[in-house]
């Protein structure tokens, strides 16, 4: 039999009175109050509050009465022997052992990483599949309007050149897969601020800048870039990106349910931004793959794509970003990596 010393509160007034609790081997607790009166408490007469660190433990009984003791080891030992409150004791046990704490830490880290790396892309894929192509249409048309307003001017390309490239465009897209209600159209623009570039909007609108046309040396170079851009449209990358952003903010705001951590806003925005850029990189690789498939089918050599890519890179003088380590912060994989991959896939000529 174990004897516990502690305080008794009767639940009626705030006075604390010294008392004792006997813990018998038969599983009965006997409460002895300040006046010496003895009361037997069977298991259903009492409930023990779950342990909490090194703080005193409470045994509740009667009408709001409680016995508070600091002899928590004795009480816990007794409870373990008589198998009471297993679940709460289990959790308390976990919180005490650093081994379990480390396991918990790993679980949390793995979970957060998993959500951002796999959970969100997978859900985005699902949601995008459910969205009709009218979403892509809408998104693309809005972007085009904005770009025309902000950065684009009327093209300076000669009619002859325009006809030539339009024809080339039609020939190329005829061989590429397309989606219902998403026709591919070619637009020419002059964009001195942007330089040489070819953009694919989700509505199927493809825009090439005059500077880009100037960089081209062969028709096959044009075709390979075209295929890459069409790859973006066909695989609905812009829409996926928008869906992912929405999911990211949704998840982030759910995880930050804790009102005491207001710092998260900053950390999250930074993290989100970086994540967004990395999604962009995987999309670029997918578009490259799309182009590679096209080039294989049309028997276009790797050099066609590789050369225009190099020229594009030089024209933008992104050499500084190409330094090792900064890749994570840029939205395109390093051009050198892309070139290596393309040459490997198609074989250098």
């Amino acid at each position: 039999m174990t004897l516990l010393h502690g305080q008794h509160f009767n639940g009626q007034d705030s006075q604390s009175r010294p008392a004792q609790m006997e813990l018998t081997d038969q599983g009965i607790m006997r409460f002895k109050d300040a006046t010496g009166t003895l009361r037997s408490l069977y298991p259903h007469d009492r409930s023990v509050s779950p342990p909490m660190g090194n703080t005193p433990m409470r045994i509740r009984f009667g009408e709001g009465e409680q016995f508070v003791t600091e002899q928590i080891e004795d009480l816990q030992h007794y409870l373990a022997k008589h198998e009471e409150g297993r679940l709460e004791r289990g959790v308390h046990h976990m919180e005490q052992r650093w081994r379990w704490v480390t396991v918990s830490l790993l679980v949390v880290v793995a979970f957060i990483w998993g959500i951002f790396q796999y959970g969100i892309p997978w859900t985005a894929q699902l949601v995008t599949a459910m969205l009709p192509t009218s979403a892509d249409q809408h998104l693309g048309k809005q972007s085009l309007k904005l770009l025309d307003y902000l950065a684009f001017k009327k093209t300076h390309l000669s009619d002859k050149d325009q006809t030539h490239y339009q024809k080339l465009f039609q020939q190329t897209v005829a061989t590429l897969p397309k989606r219902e209600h998403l026709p591919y159209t070619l637009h020419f623009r002059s964009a001195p601020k942007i330089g040489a570039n070819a953009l694919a909007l989700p509505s199927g609108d493809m825009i090439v800048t005059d500077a880009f046309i100037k960089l081209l040396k062969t028709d096959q170079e044009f075709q390979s870039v075209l295929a890459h851009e069409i790859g973006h449209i066909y695989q609905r990358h812009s829409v996926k990106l928008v869906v992912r952003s929405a999911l990211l903010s949704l998840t982030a705001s759910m995880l930050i349910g804790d009102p005491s951590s207001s710092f998260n806003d900053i950390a999250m925005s930074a993290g989100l931004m970086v994540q967004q850029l990395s999604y962009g990189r995987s999309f670029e690789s997918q578009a490259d793959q799309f182009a590679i498939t096209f080039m294989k089918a049309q028997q276009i050599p790797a050099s066609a794509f590789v050369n225009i890519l190099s020229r594009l890179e030089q024209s933008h003088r992104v050499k500084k970003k190409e330094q090792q380590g900064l890749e994570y912060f840029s939205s395109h994989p390093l051009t050198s990596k892309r070139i290596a991959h393309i040459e490997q896939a198609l074989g250098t000529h």
Partner: protein
Amino acid sequence: MFTARARDYFKIWIVNWALTILTLGIYSAWAKVRRNRFFYNHTIIDGHNLEYTADPIRILKGRIIAAAFVIPMVVLEQMQDLQLKLISNAIYFMILMLLPAVIVMAMRFSLRNTEYRGIRFNFEGKMGKSYLVYMLWTIIGSVSMGLLFPIAYKKQTEYLLVNSHFGQSPFQAKPPLLDRHFYGVFLLFFLEMAVLSGGLLALNSLLSDISTEFPIEYTFIFSAIPFVLFVAFFIAVTSVFRAAVFELVWSQTHLSTLSFSCDLSKSRIFWIALSNLFLRVISLGFLSPLATIRMKKYMLSSIQVETTATAKNHFLADNRDNQSGSTAEGLDDLVGFDFGI
């Protein structure tokens, strides 16, 4: 006296997170109870600690009901379809309309599940009054371009204080809370913000002058620095504001024959808040428990209770059978409010 240690809280915090994740959020109700019990049990007044007696199952039910409203609202908000967006806005509006009622229910649940020396606390605020201070006065505050907002805030704080009870004894403000004290706190806040903004604008122009020496890729770092500092200081200044209100209220709080006093240094609060932010960011959130404990410890330790030897034994319990619904508690959690003094 606050005896909690950061390392102990960290263990509870991380196990809470792990189990919540593994149970897909169900454990969160138990996690909340464990968290509150940890803080309450380590708060010792005159040799005895507080206890949190909420039943996790009721909290879970509340959270599920709340989620049933909030999750559709958030999802629909992201949709492009105008009709769906309208439904989302309708739900949000409805929640807004119910907010004063939710506050009352949350306070009741929270206080009635707080116990000291065998006596439970209570909240007796009337619904009507809640709507008056939280809805009408908030509108008055905004309509007056913020000029009357400190008064609205004072009325809300006062409402929460005077309707809180320990057993049969109500809390009181003696002398009563004054409007001008609250104006003082708000003015201090704006003053700090003004100084802060001024300083950062100066820093910003200094940095842009320097940045012209560097290649163009690095300019964004120079513009990011003032921005990051601004956010950090803003968070710290907000903490100071909350602490100032805390000090103001507790200095004038009385409970029957008990009186409280509160003395804290705002500059210390500022420093704790700023360093806490730094700790959280550096550790990617994993040192949050330490940050929480640091702030709570300082704020709780700043309160003193004055009473006579016998008075403390003469509080009586309020034994009318009161069990409040826990939906309010659930909704609170999900939407991120934190009530209570």
